């Protein structure tokens, strides 16, 4: 079978899973942004500096390991210059602020002020970004990185398909909550939700359409079937229900519906614990989205409450890849397959396989996925 036929077969299989139809083999998906360079002997400094490096080293990793049907978030371009525009925070970069082979890290601090909500409300999101981003980002690098993506996508990620892999997403979209939380810092932003809820909500309402438009534009530019819908500080375990119901969930619903209208598959990359509100996922259109948790959300509850409407991609915990054993991974994959009874399941590292993933654990993940994931 040539690689294009392999790609089509894998794509069909993944679409069947999303549609909760039976498959012959549970898809196995790669996710490990920082694992790939470490595994291939490339320093994180090099990985962050060269826009071609993420795709090249990730593809090389997938080829070397073998056994993957695709990749969750297709790596391409330079991430670290762009991260400040997503987090509204400064980012410590390996080779510049950190030792060359360490992981890039968001330096969350209170840079955005309560007065910035007024700027957003009165002047709009872009006007705010124009004044704010110089405080957290290197604008020259940011523009270069964005222009590189505009010029090189989808060419830059075409090799995934040429090697038979399905790239499910290549760009993110998230809620205004995550942006503001990054810019204000978590403690200050959470306090804002209690102290000035109306103002925060008004600013969120201004920002949301721009974020949706940007997300759709990015996915179309990359030619992707899906889009990564991120949630980390918005997790149920972190936020009181009355705040979550007002500042989180309505925005997720609007984003998901807009993405679906644009013909995209939302991949709900939900870090931390969302167990409390799992039943709310039933409000989203059925058989259209993929839940993509990180190992902290209760999968038994997901199976019970949501799995008749939505597929799950995950969720082998990143801590297990780093600190566990191959036996731990084998058992986790076995139990996951058993829990889902081979339906509506895509096997994937939860969040992602971290930089210090033990190679034998990644190999165990692939082997276990093929052993237990073979249906027919």
């Amino acid at each position: 079978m040539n690689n294009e036929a392999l790609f089509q077969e894998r794509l069909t299989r993944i679409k069947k899973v999303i549609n909760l139809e039976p498959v012959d083999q549970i898809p196995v998906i790669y996710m490990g942004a920082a694992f790939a360079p470490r595994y291939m002997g490339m320093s994180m400094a090099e990985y962050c500096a060269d826009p071609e490096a993420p795709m090249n080293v990730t593809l090389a990793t997938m080829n070397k390991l073998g056994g993957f049907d695709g990749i969750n978030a297709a790596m391409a371009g330079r991430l670290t210059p762009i991260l400040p525009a997503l987090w509204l925070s400064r980012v410590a970069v390996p080779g510049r602020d950190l030792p060359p082979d360490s992981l890039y890290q968001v330096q969350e601090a209170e840079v955005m002020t309560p007065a910035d909500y007024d700027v957003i409300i009165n002047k709009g999101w872009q006007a705010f970004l124009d004044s704010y981003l110089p405080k957290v980002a290197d604008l020259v690098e940011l523009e270069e990185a964005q222009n590189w993506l505009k010029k090189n996508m989808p060419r830059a990620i075409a090799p995934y398909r040429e090697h038979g892999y399905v790239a499910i997403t290549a760009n993110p979209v998230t809620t205004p909550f995550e942006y503001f939380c990054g810019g204000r810092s978590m403690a200050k932003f959470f306090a804002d939700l209690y102290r000035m809820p109306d103002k925060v909500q008004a600013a969120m309402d201004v920002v949301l359409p721009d974020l949706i438009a940007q997300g759709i534009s990015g996915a179309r530019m990359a030619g992707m079937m899906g889009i990564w819908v991120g949630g980390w500080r918005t997790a149920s375990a972190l936020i009181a229900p009355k705040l979550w119901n007002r500042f989180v969930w309505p925005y997720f619903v609007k984003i998901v519906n807009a993405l679906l209208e644009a013909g995209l598959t939302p991949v709900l990359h939900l870090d931390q614990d969302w167990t409390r509100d799992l039943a709310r996922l039933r409000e989203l259109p059925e058989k259209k989205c993929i839940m993509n948790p990180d190992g902290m959300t209760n999968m038994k509850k997901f199976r019970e409450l949501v799995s008749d409407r939505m597929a799950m991609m995950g969720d082998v915990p990143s801590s297990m890849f780093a600190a566990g054993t191959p036996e731990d991974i084998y058992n986790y994959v076995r139990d996951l397959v058993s829990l889902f009874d081979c339906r509506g399941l895509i096997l994937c590292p939860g969040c992602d396989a971290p930089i210090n993933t033990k190679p034998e654990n990644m190999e165990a993940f692939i082997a276990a996925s093929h052993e237990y994931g073979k249906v027919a």
Partner: protein
Amino acid sequence: MIDQLATTMADLEEAMVLKLVQQRLDTGEDPMMILTSCREGMVLVGKRFEAGEYWVSDLMMAGEIFKQVSGLLSSRLKTDAIGKLGKVVIGTVKGDIHDIGKDIVVSLLNAANYDVRDLGVDVPPQKVIDVVKETGATIVGLSGLLTVAFDSMKETVAALAAAGLRPKVKVMIGGGSVSEKVQHYTGADAWGTNAQSAVSLCNQWIKEVAR
């Protein structure tokens, strides 16, 4: 029977808490009594969290309010006359610069009347050893969000042992991706994924020492 200030604190009514504190200060009341009321409120916050009535955002808001109260009272408190429950040395381990989780723990431990030495982020093992020796702390809290923190936690626990301090201190680890497996990996005594569990652990350990 707790007073109105404690109840208001527990209900996270920030403006009212600050007003009541100011009123009681204006009447010449001992600032330590005011602080005690607020601490009682924080204990209630912790209980509500453990009962599933409060969430992390509520803990953080309580910490914000308590910090303001402490700011109002600090200049009036000659010394903290009530003996501290215990000494805790805490930090985000080497290689990790995330401080949010650690800061919430510090805030809640302060409110729970612990003497907390916060070492900040990217803390090397030797720094922990030095400060444990200096303070005589019996509890060490190691925080980290990234999985690379696991190895630093392990190194720190091993360094405490090599320095002969391990029998004298309990070590708790915390952070988004820690688990029982990570606790075993690092050699720590306990783990938690939320700040309130750190307070509960410290209370438990201090009681064990007192027995």
